[in-house]
C-alpha cells in the first residue's frame, strides 16, 4: 500500500463536482444494501444506540450520585445498574460502529471490486496500459475498492460522531446553558487536530519516495538475484549505508511532522482544558448557590472524559474521508476515460468466415501516445490470403507495432487496415480476435496451472484434455510438461508459490496456448523462437509453415512471423523489411537478395559471421 501512496502523491489531481460524489455514495449504499440489508440496518441501529448509551451513562451517574446524597437507596442502585449496563453495551457495540468490517469487505470486494476490474478488462486497446497517466490511475483504482468502501462508511461515521458531540454538549447544557459555550472551546482542538493531521499526511506523501528507495535497497541486499553482483562488486556496505540513510531520512521527516502535529493537538486541548475547568468552576459555583448538585459535577466530568474520544473520532473519520478522495478521483477519471473510449468504438460487423483477398495496410501511421515519433510511418502493403508473411527489421523498427495493429490493439492514427475490403475498425473487436491466434514476444505468464496456461488459448475447450494435449505436442512443449512435478496440474509462477519456468519453457507454454484455436484466419508469431533451443525451434517453424500453407489453402488464413534475425525467415512467401517505422522493401527472399538493398546488406552481416574466414 505504501507504493500506492507514492503513486497517489505523484498523480495529478482532478476536482469533481459534489454531485459525482453524491452519485457514487448512492451507488455504494446500493451495493451494501443489496448485499447485506440486515447488517446495514444493524449498523445504523448500533450507531443510534451508542449515541443513546453515551448520554445515558452520564445521566445515570448523575442520578446515582444525587440519589445517594438524598438517601434514596432504590434510585441510587437503579442508576448504578443502568450506568453499568450502558457502559457494557457501549463497549460491545463500539468496534462495529467505528469499523464495520463486514460492511466494508463484502460489498467492497464482492461488488465494487469486480465492477472496477470488469471496467479495466473492457479496455480493448493496449495504448491505455502503455500510457503512464492511465496506468498510474489503473494501479490506484485496482487496489482501492476496500478503501473507497471504508471511506464511505467513515463518512457516515462522521455524521454520527458529530451527532454524539452535539448530544454530549446538550447534556452539559442541561447543567447550565452557560456550559454550551464549551462548544466554542471544543472547536479549537477540532481545528488544531485537523491542522496537525494535514501536516502528518503531507509528510507521509513527501517521504514516500525515500521510503520506497530504502525498501528497494533492502530487497537488493537480501535477495539472491542481486546478491551475486553486489558481492563481486563489493557494493554491499555502500548499499546498506544508502538504505539506512534513506530510512533515517524518511523517519526524520515523518517524526518531525508528527511532532508538529502533536504540538497542535496539545495546544488545542490546552485551550479546551482551560475552558472546561472554567466550566467546572461554574458548576461548583452553582452547587454553592444550591442551584446545582454534586451529580452535575460527576456528569460534567464524565462527559469531559468522553469528549476527547468523541472529538478524536470526528477528526480521524473526517481525515479518512478527505483522504479517500485521492482514491475516488482516479476512479472517476478512469470511468470517464473508459466511457470516452467506449464511445469511440464503432466496430459492429461480424468477422469473416474465410479470407479471399487478404489484409491490406493503406498509408498507416501510428505513434505511441506521448512519444511524438511515428512507430509506423505511412505503411502500405497487401498481405495476400493464404500466404506466410515475414516481418524483419532491427530493434524499434515497428515490427511488433504492425502485428499489434492487426489484432486491433491499437487504432491507426492515419490510414486504415482492411480485411477483405472491410475496415478493421468496423469489425466487432471480440469477433475478429476470436479468429486470431498469436504468440507475442512479451507473452503472458499466468499464475495458474500448466493446463490452464495452455487451455485459455481457446476458452471453449479449456477443460478439453485432448485439445490441450494436442496443443502441447504441437508447440513441442511435452518436454516442459514431463519436468513438472504434478504434470498438467502444476502451478506456474513464483509469485503464487508455484514453479517458475525458464524463459524458454515459458515461451513453449505461450506457443502451446497459441496452438489451441483450431482454424484462425490470422496467426501471428512475434519473435517466437528468441529463447527456444534449436531443435524445437526448427520443428516448430517447419510445422507452422506446413500448417500455414495447408490451412491457408482452405480458408485463406494468413501467417505473420516477426523476427529480428533475417536468417530465420528466408522461406516466407513475402518478407517485409521495416526500418524506423517505414516499409523499405518487400518481396520474397531471392527477389530481395537480387535487389541488393537493405535486406541483402543486413543478411550479409549475419551470414559473414558464419563464413569460412573470420569477419
Amino acid at each position, binding site marked *: 500500500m505504501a507504493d500506492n501512496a507514492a503513486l497517489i502523491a505523484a498523480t495529478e489531481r482532478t476536482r469533481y463536482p459534489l454531485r459525482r460524489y453524491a452519485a457514487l455514495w448512492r451507488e455504494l449504499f446500493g451495493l451494501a444494501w443489496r448485499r447485506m440489508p440486515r447488517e446495514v440496518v444493524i449498523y445504523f441501529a448500533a450507531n443510534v444506540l451508542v449515541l443513546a448509551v453515551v448520554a445515558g451513562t452520564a445521566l445515570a451517574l448523575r442520578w446515582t450520585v444525587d440519589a445517594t446524597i438524598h438517601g434514596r437507596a432504590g434510585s441510587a442502585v437503579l442508576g448504578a445498574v443502568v450506568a453499568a449496563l450502558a457502559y*457494557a453495551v457501549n463497549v460491545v457495540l463500539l468496534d462495529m460502529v467505528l469499523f464495520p468490517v463486514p460492511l466494508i469487505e463484502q460489498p467492497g470486494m464482492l461488488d465494487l471490486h469486480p465492477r472496477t476490474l470488469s471496467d*479495466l478488462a473492457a479496455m480493448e486497446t493496449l495504448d491505455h496500459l502503455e500510457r503512464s497517466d492511465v496506468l498510474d490511475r489503473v494501479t490506484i483504482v485496482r487496489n482501492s475498492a476496500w478503501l473507497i468502501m471504508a471511506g464511505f462508511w467513515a463518512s457516515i461515521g462522521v455524521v454520527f460522531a458529530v451527532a454524539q458531540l452535539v448530544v454530549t454538549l446538550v447534556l452539559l447544557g442541561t447543567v447550565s446553558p452557560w456550559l454550551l459555550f464549551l462548544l466554542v472551546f471544543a472547536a479549537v482542538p477540532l481545528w488544531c487536530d485537523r491542522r496537525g493531521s494535514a501536516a502528518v499526511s503531507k509528510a507521509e506523501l513527501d517521504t514516500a519516495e525515500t521510503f520506497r528507495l530504502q525498501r528497494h535497497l533492502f530487497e537488493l541486499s537480501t535477495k539472491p538475484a542481486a546478491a551475486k553482483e553486489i558481492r563481486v*562488486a563489493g*557494493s*554491499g556496505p555502500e548499499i546498506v549505508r544508502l538504505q*539506512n540513510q534513506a530510512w533515517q531520512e524518511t523517519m526524520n521527516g515523518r517524526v518531525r511532522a508528527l511532532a508538529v502535529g502533536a504540538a497542535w493537538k496539545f495546544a488545542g486541548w490546552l485551550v479546551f482544558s*482551560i475552558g472546561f475547568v472554567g466550566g467546572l468552576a461554574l458548576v461548583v459555583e452553582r452547587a454553592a448557590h444550591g442551584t446545582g448538585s454534586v451529580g452535575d459535577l460527576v456528569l460534567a466530568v464524565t462527559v469531559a472524559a468522553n469528549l476527547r474520544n468523541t472529538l478524536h473520532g470526528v477528526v480521524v473519520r473526517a481525515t479518512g474521508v478527505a483522504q479517500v478522495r485521492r482514491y475516488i478521483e482516479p476512479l472517476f477519471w478512469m470511468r470517464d476515460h473508459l466511457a470516452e473510449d467506449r464511445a469511440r468504438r464503432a466496430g459492429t460487423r461480424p468477422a469473416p468466415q474465410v479470407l479471399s483477398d487478404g489484409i491490406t495496410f493503406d498509408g498507416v501511421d501510428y505513434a505511441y501516445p506521448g512519444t511524438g515519433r511515428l512507430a509506423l510511418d505511412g505503411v502500405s502493403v497487401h498481405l495476400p490470403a493464404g500466404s506466410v508473411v515475414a516481418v524483419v527489421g532491427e530493434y524499434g523498427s515497428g515490427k511488433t507495432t504492425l502485428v499489434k495493429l492487426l489484432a486491433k490493439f491499437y487504432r491507426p492514427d492515419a490510414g486504415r487496415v482492411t480485411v477483405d475490403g472491410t475496415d478493421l475498425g468496423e469489425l466487432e473487436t471480440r469477433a475478429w480476435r476470436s479468429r486470431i491466434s498469436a504468440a507475442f514476444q512479451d507473452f503472458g*505468464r499466468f499464475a495458474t496451472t500448466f493446463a490452464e496456461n495452455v487451455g485459455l488459448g481457446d476458452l471453449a475447450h479449456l477443460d478439453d484434455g485432448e485439445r490441450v494435449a494436442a496443443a502441447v505436442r504441437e508447440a513441442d512443449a511435452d518436454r516442459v510438461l514431463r519436468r513438472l512435478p504434478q504434470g498438467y496440474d502444476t502451478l506456474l509462477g513464483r509469485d503464487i508459490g508455484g*514453479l517458475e519456468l525458464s524463459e524458454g519453457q515459458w515461451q513453449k507454454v505461450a506457443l502451446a496456448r497459441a496452438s489451441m484455436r483450431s482454424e484462425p484466419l490470422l496467426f501471428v508469431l512475434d519473435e517466437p523462437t528468441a529463447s527456444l533451443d534449436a531443435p524445437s525451434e526448427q520443428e516448430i517453424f517447419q510445422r507452422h509453415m506446413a500448417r500455414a500453407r495447408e490451412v491457408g489453402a482452405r480458408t485463406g488464413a494468413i501467417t505473420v512471423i516477426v523476427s529480428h534475425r533475417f536468417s530465420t525467415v528466408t522461406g516466407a512467401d513475402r518478407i517485409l523489411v521495416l526500418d524506423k517505422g517505414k516499409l523499405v522493401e518487400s518481396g520474397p527472399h531471392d527477389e530481395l537478395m537480387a535487389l541488393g538493398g537493405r535486406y541483402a546488406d543486413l543478411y550479409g552481416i549475419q551470414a559473414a559471421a558464419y563464413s569460412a574466414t573470420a569477419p
Partner: protein
Amino acid sequence: MPVLARRVRLLRALGAARPLLTAALCAVFLLNALIPAASAVTTAILVSRISGHAHSGLLGSAVLPLLLFGAVMVAGHAAEAASTPLDVLARARIDGAHRAELARLASADPTIDRLERPRVQQLIRIARADPQNWTEHTPGEGALGQLHWTAGLIGAAASCAVLARYAWWLVPLLLIPAALNRYFGNRIGGRFSDAWRAGIPYGMHGTAWEEALTSTAEGKDIRLFGIEEWSVAKIQRHIREMLEPVWELGSRGRRANLRRFLLIAGPLVLAYAAVADGTVHGHATVAVETAVLASGWSLYQAFGSSEDMHRMTAALESLDAFDQVAAVLRSAPDHPADDPADDPADDPADKPADNSAGTPPGPDSRTHAPASSPDAVPLVRFEDVCFAYPGTTRQVTDHLDLEIRPHELLAVVGLNGAGKSTMIKLLAGLYTPTAGRITADGVDIRELGPPAWRDRMSVVFQDFVRYHLTVAQNVALGHGSVPLDRAALSAAADDAGLGDVLDRLPDGWETPLSRTRTGGADLSGGQWQQVVLARALYAVRTGARLLVLDEPTAHLDVRTEFEVFNRLAARRGETSVVLISHRLSTVRQADRIVLLENGRIAESGSHDELIAAGGAYAEMFAIQAERFQHGYDDRADFDDEYDGAEYHDLTGEAAAHG
C-alpha cells in the same frame, strides 16, 4: 518461565531506541495509564469538597481541587499528544536498526548458497520488518506494545487501589472478569489473524490475476483470447476463497459478543449496585462512591487491546526469524562432501584451509599472499574443481581444470546446464568448491579472502542489478569498495559509449534511473545494457583485472553485439576477459575457446584449431552456420535452462507443493 523470557526478548529490542527516548516513552505510557485513576481521585476530592462544605465559601475552597483536576486533565492530553511522535520515533529507531542489521547480515555472507535457500528467503521475508498486511508487525511495534501493555498493568493496579478504598472484594470482582475478557478477546483476535493468514495464498492468486489484467504482456493475451470476464470471475473466486473463512468467523462472533457483554455487565452491575447501596447506608462517602464509579470500568481498558497482544506475538515471529537467519548465515556451509578428508573446500572460517601457505584466513580476511600482486593481471587456475548443489549428487562441475591466462580473451561455450554460470559463481567465490581449488597466481582465492579477490574482478551477470539510484551511482557501484572516482567514471562512460544515453537524460549523471524517483527516467533494455557495460569498465578502470561477461549481448541485435565485443577487446591491455556466449559468430573472435560439457572442459583452443580438430565445437559451429544458411537461429542453445537458481526453485517449490 518461557513466557517471561519472550517478554524480555521484546523489551530488549528497546535498546535500539536508546535510553533517553525509552525513559520518555515509559513516562508517557505510565502517565496515560494512570490518568483514569488520577481523574477518579481528583473528581472524588472535588466531590468531597462540595458535599462536605457549607455553601458559602465553597468556591474558594474548591479552587485547589479544581486546579488539581485541571492539571490531571492537561497532563493526560500532553501524554496523549506526545505519545504518537515518541512512539513512531522509537519504532523508527528499533526497526531501522533491525533492518540495517538484517541487510548487513545478508550481504556480508561471502557465499550465496545459504542466501539462495528457499527457507532462508522465507525467513528473511518474515524477519524484514516491512509489514505487508495487518497481521504482520515489526519488532519496534512489538517492543512498544509490550511497554504499553506493562504500563497498562500499572494503571490497573492504580485503579484497583481506588476500588479497594471502598472494599477489597471489589478488586477480584472486577479484576478477574476484566482479565478474562481480555483473554477471550485476544483469543478471538488470534483466530481472525490466523484465518486471514491462511487465506493469503488465495489472495496472492487473485492479485496475480489482477496484475495480469492491467499488464501489457498478460493483458494482451487476455484480450486476444477473449478471457476478460473469465479472469474477473477467477479473481472473484480467489477473493472468496481468501475472505469467506474470515467472514464466517465474524458471523459466528455474535456469541462472543454476548459473552463479552455478560463479562462486563455482570460484575459491573453487582459492583456499582453494591457501592450505591452501601453508600446510601453510610458505608462510604459520596466521594468514594464517585471514585469507584469512575474507575470501575477503567479496569476493563487497563489490560490493553487485543492489538497489543497481537503486536507482541507477530513481532516475536519477526525476531525469531531474524535469529534463525542469523544462525544460518553465521554458520559454516553444510556442503555434503563426498569424502571430508580430501575436501579442502569447507568454510575457511571453520577449519584451516588446505593450502600451501597454511594460514587459516577467515572469510573476511584481507590477507594478501605475496605471490599475487593485486595490480597484476592474474593467472587463474581451476584445479580439479568439483561442485554439487547442497542436497544433490549431480556434479555441476566435475574435476574441472581450466586456466585463464593474463590478458587473454577467453570464450566459454557449452549447452545450457553444462555448468557455465556455476563456474562463474565458483570463480567469484560465491560458491565454495566441494573439492579442488581455484588459484590466482598460485594462491587459493579463499586464502586471498573474498573481498580482496573480488576487488580484482568484475562480473556482468545476465540479470544485472538496476539500482533506483543515479546514473553515477549505478556505474560506480560496479566497484563499491573503492571511493567514487569521477575521472574513472567519465572514462568508463566513454569506453562504453554511454555518452548518448547521458546526453538524453535530464540531469545527466545525476538522473535517478527509476520513474518512481523525482526527476527519474526509465531506460530501455539496450540503454541499461550500456550502463552495465560502463559499470564493468569502471571496475576495470579502478583496478579490476579480470572481467567476466555472462551472455552480455543475448538481447542485443547483431550490429550492437559486434560493437560491444570490440569495446571489450579494446580493454585487454588492462585485464583478462572471460566471455560466455551462445553466439558462436561472436565467440570465434576470442583468443581461446573452451567448450564446457558435463562440468568439464571438453575442448580448448582457438576457433581455427577447434574447427580443425573436428570435435563438438566444430559440429556446433557447423550446425549453427548451416542453420543460418537455411534460415534458422544463430545461437547454440540445445537444452532447457538448468542452473543454480532454477534448481532451487525446482526442488524447493516442488517440495512445497508435493
